[in-house]
Structures are given as C-alpha cells and as structure tokens.
C-alpha cells in the first residue's frame, strides 16, 4: 500500500484520536504535545510498516517527524 497523506491522516484520526479537521500539514504534532512520546513510538512503527522504510535513531528528530508535511518530506527524500 502506498504511504501518502491520506494514509497518514487516517491513522492520526482513527488510531491517535486527533481532530484532523482542525489541523493542517504544518501543525506541530509532537512539540505541541498533540502526541506524547509513546504515541510517537506507535506512529513511527506505523510509518515504517506502511512505507517499508526503516528509521534509525538519527532519523528520529523534530525536523523529520513533527508535522504531516515533515513526515511526508522525510519519506520522499528517503525513497529517492
């Protein structure tokens, strides 16, 4: 299954319980405390599983993960 914006939004809505209608692609997910550390662990597992891209500890940072836009940007860079 291709990992795309809709996949991510659906996960954040259904599994993380976020109110996605009030969010945009730049909304901070982690630094704003929308997601706590353990939710982020689950999100990373989901991203890895659905995108087939393994994240290293050095990939885990706010630049790569703190918004929908950053997550998709990271995955796009990684898949090139």
């Amino acid at each position: 299954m291709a990992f795309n914006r809709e996949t991510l939004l659906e996960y954040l809505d259904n599994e993380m319980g976020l109110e996605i209608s009030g969010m945009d692609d730049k909304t901070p997910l982690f630094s704003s405390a929308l997601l706590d550390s353990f939710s982020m662990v689950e999100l990373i597992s989901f991203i890895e599983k659905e995108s087939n891209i393994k994240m290293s500890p050095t990939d885990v940072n706010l630049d790569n993960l703190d918004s929908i836009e950053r997550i998709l940007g990271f995955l796009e860079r990684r898949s090139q």
Partner: protein
Amino acid sequence: MVKIEPLKMEIFEIVATWLSKPQINKWLASGWRGKQIDAKVLSIVTMKPSNKLFIVRYNNEPCGLVTLGCVDTIDKTGTLWYLLGEQQYGGKGIMTEAVRQVVRLVFKELGLRSISASIMAPNYNSRRVLEKIGFREVGTLRYGLELDGQHVNRIVFDILPEDLNDVMTTFP
C-alpha cells in the same frame, strides 16, 4: 566520583537496555512498562523540549539515568524520575548524589519553583533517595499504580529550592 551529563545518542542503547530489564521496568510509569524499548524510543523522548535526561556516571562508567519530564516553563514545575541501571553499584548512595545534582542544576538553570516525583509505595529504595535529598511526601494516590499484577498506592513527593539538602555525599 558521581557525575551527571546530558544523555547523548551514543548511550541510548545502554539506557534502553536498562529500561528493558524486568527488575527495573516494573517500577516505571505505565507508558514504559512491558514495552519494547530501544534507542529509537530514547530518541523520541529526548526530542521533546520538556524532557531533560541525564546519564549518571560513577568513576566514568554509565550506571544510571535521571530524568526531569513534563517541564512546564509557565508554571515552573517538572517531574523527576530515575533509575539505577547497573545494580552492582547499588547501596553506595550514587543515585542519591546524582538526583541531588540534577535537582540542584534544574533549580538553578531552569528556575523551576518546584519539582515533583512519585513512587510505588513498596519502592523503599526510591523513597530513601528522595527523602535524603529533601523531598517531602505530599500525598497518596490510592491504588494509583500497578505492580506485579496488583494495584499499589502512588506516593507523591515534592521539593522546593529551599528544601534541597545540599550536603554532598563523599565517595571512596
């Protein structure tokens, strides 16, 4: 000699191992308990600006972790937790000294007005660490935590800068 320093990525694997040890993991907050903990988890936790993690070294060997979490820069508070990762260093006062150093540091550098901590009621070692430093027991949350399949009380402590018992432990 006991030293504390900010936790860096090079030590994540060691700390993840400590957090995963059953005899340590069972005393942790529910978010950590029974979970697969690896270096990536530590990356996530350290990513959050409101978390400050410190590695404890005894004679330069990493042996424990002290964390100040939920740092609230508006209310000037934070929540402390800690663990001794290498049990062979137990009984020497190392974690007491390390926690004292972290508490002193964060009061000074972050300007916090109070720090809280909580323990499972049967965790007598942890209680001693807090009391020696100057934390005061402020309450009990009945059956607030689960330990080995049974609910136990959560004992809550706090400390203000003026409470800190700042007498350093001497080590051989």
